[in-house]
């Protein structure tokens, strides 16, 4: 390596050499420190994502004596003729469209309720958060029992309506199975987003509220003119995370309904897992995954665009 003329001319050569050696050592040490993480990210995210694209155009099977063959767009052609795929797509959208506003809105209500300066808010925060630390698998099995024809939910409905309303057999009825799963999913996940909203609420400067009070603002105008604009960054985050989670709906379906009754709760991820794992058709499942990926990406880009800062 040649010394560049004019570079740090006032530094004596020996010191410059030491500095250069120190720089080199720093670069090497840094590379050594990032490489384990980068290696693992490449192995277990980058390569599998690339494979999802590649395998979607092959007839790869999970375990197969013959190597996978390139089959072009065959998988996608089959997919477009697959009525179960359309059903799964519809169910996935149905779930997302209901869960996103319901969970986001309820989470905000909870956050506002526990952001007040009253006794016991810490207790309430803890209780609202309990379902979040309970595994979805446990929650699903628990609510399967609650949702039975003669289960606790129907007993409660019957009590609260003084015996006027008899609840349905929630999970075995095609028109109530998905709503039942929606209610349970919101119950489990809403505490998480309550905490996110709460963190957002606490970044809003207190003097904005005081100024609003001096102007004689009502609670409602105070919410619309101070709180709501102050939560714009949080709002985007809540919206996008609930959406992505909603699209990935799998565990509840696998434990509670296996896609039934009459495929009324089959979802895209559930269908992908069933074909890819149970039926071992990796190529076809990759095609489903790929469509799913494009979908999620498109929806979150649209959301980002719609919620962008309007300066």
């Amino acid at each position, binding site marked *: 390596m040649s010394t560049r003329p004019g570079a740090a001319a006032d530094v004596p050569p020996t010191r410059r050499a030491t500095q250069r050696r120190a720089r080199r050592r720093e670069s090497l040490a840094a590379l050594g420190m990032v490489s384990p993480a980068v290696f693992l990210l490449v192995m277990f995210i980058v390569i599998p994502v690339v494979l999802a694209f590649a395998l979607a155009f092959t007839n790869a099977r999970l375990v197969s004596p013959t190597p996978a063959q390139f089959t072009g767009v065959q998988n996608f052609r089959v997919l477009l003729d697959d009525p179960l795929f359309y059903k799964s797509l519809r169910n996935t959208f149905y779930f997302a469209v209901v869960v996103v506003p319901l969970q986001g809105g309820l989470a905000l209500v909870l956050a506002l309720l526990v952001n007040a300066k009253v006794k016991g808010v810490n207790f309430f925060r803890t209780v609202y958060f309990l379902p979040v630390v309970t595994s979805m698998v446990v929650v699903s099995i628990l609510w399967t029992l609650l949702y039975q024809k003669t289960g606790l939910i129907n007993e409660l409905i019957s009590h609260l309506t003084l015996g006027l309303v008899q609840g349905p057999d929630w999970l075995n009825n095609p028109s109530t199975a998905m709503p039942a799963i929606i209610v349970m999913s919101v119950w489990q996940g809403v505490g998480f987003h309550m*905490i996110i909203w709460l963190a957002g609420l606490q970044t809003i400067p207190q003097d904005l509220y005081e100024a609003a009070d001096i102007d004689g603002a009502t609670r409602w105008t105070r919410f619309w003119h101070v709180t709501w604009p102050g939560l714009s960054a949080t709002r985007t985050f809540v919206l996008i995370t609930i959406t992505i989670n909603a699209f990935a709906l799998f565990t509840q379906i696998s434990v509670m309904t296996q896609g039934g009754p009459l495929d009324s709760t089959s979802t895209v991820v559930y269908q992908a897992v069933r074909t890819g794992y149970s039926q071992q058709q990796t190529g076809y*499942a990759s095609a489903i995954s790929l469509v799913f990926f494009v979908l999620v990406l498109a929806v979150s880009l649209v959301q980002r665009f719609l919620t962008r800062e309007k300066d």
Partner: protein
Amino acid sequence: MTSVSPAPAPAPAHPGRRRRPSPRRIGLQAARIALALFFSFPIVFMLVSSFKPDQQIFGDLDGIKAFLPVGHLSLDNYTGVFDRVPAVRFLLNSIGISAITVALSIFINSLAAFALSRMRWRGKKIVLTAVIATLIVPFETFALPMVWWVNKLPWLQLDGGRLIVTEGWLDTYQVQILPFVANAMFIFLFHQYFQSIPKELDEAAVLDGASWFGIYRRIVMPLSGPAIATVAILAFLPMWNAYLWPLMVVQSEDLRPVMIGIDYFVQTNPSWGEIMAYSSMITVPVLALFVAFQRAFVSSIASSGVKG
């Protein structure tokens, strides 16, 4: 890192004289209590039912008794669980898998974040951007190709004193651990935290002849308790709750984690008392951890939302 601090206790407006609560405040408090019942009733029902025989669980459904530990209570369901599934094995597997993943995750991600936030080297910005970019792909989109991929990976094994190369990671412990160690979210959290630690500390240590790894280990990590706690919690929960992945990659009973155990009860004719007992067994430890480290849990969740 944002922390959700508990609201300070209200200052009495007129000391010595209690103000009558307004109807609005009573209404809000009633709403809070109703919601608390809504969020806790299934969990209370689960815990209480785990001590009751099946017949009584269904018999008690029509009243408040469903939530009260009354009637014939016993540990029969719990002993029944151990007859039906190798519960101890599953618990040990999950504890081991979660602990190793959390430890490796803290080490490897903080090491990368240290290089990315505190050292000068070429290509740093590109690497950081690439790492963050991996966050946009949800796991579910590549889980299936990944099953195919891990089935092709080699592994070294000791076989009668000789090291042999095996192919395929299906049915192993490493397949449940290694894919979840590196995490862009955790690198990002450490990165943000490390930037709040003054860089002068590093410079002083360099003058004293410390190595970069020495600075990481002796200076930066000991000052990063809150970030470590956050990552530990965020890494632990999905590992303990893992279901989709082990369902696909683990066949042998000996290697299964706790959540897969639930399927044993669903497949064979279910005893709901035993299901509640098993569910309680695998939930109560996490709930206990949560209640004990509540503040750390809540602030770790809050900090996961900071990236906005």
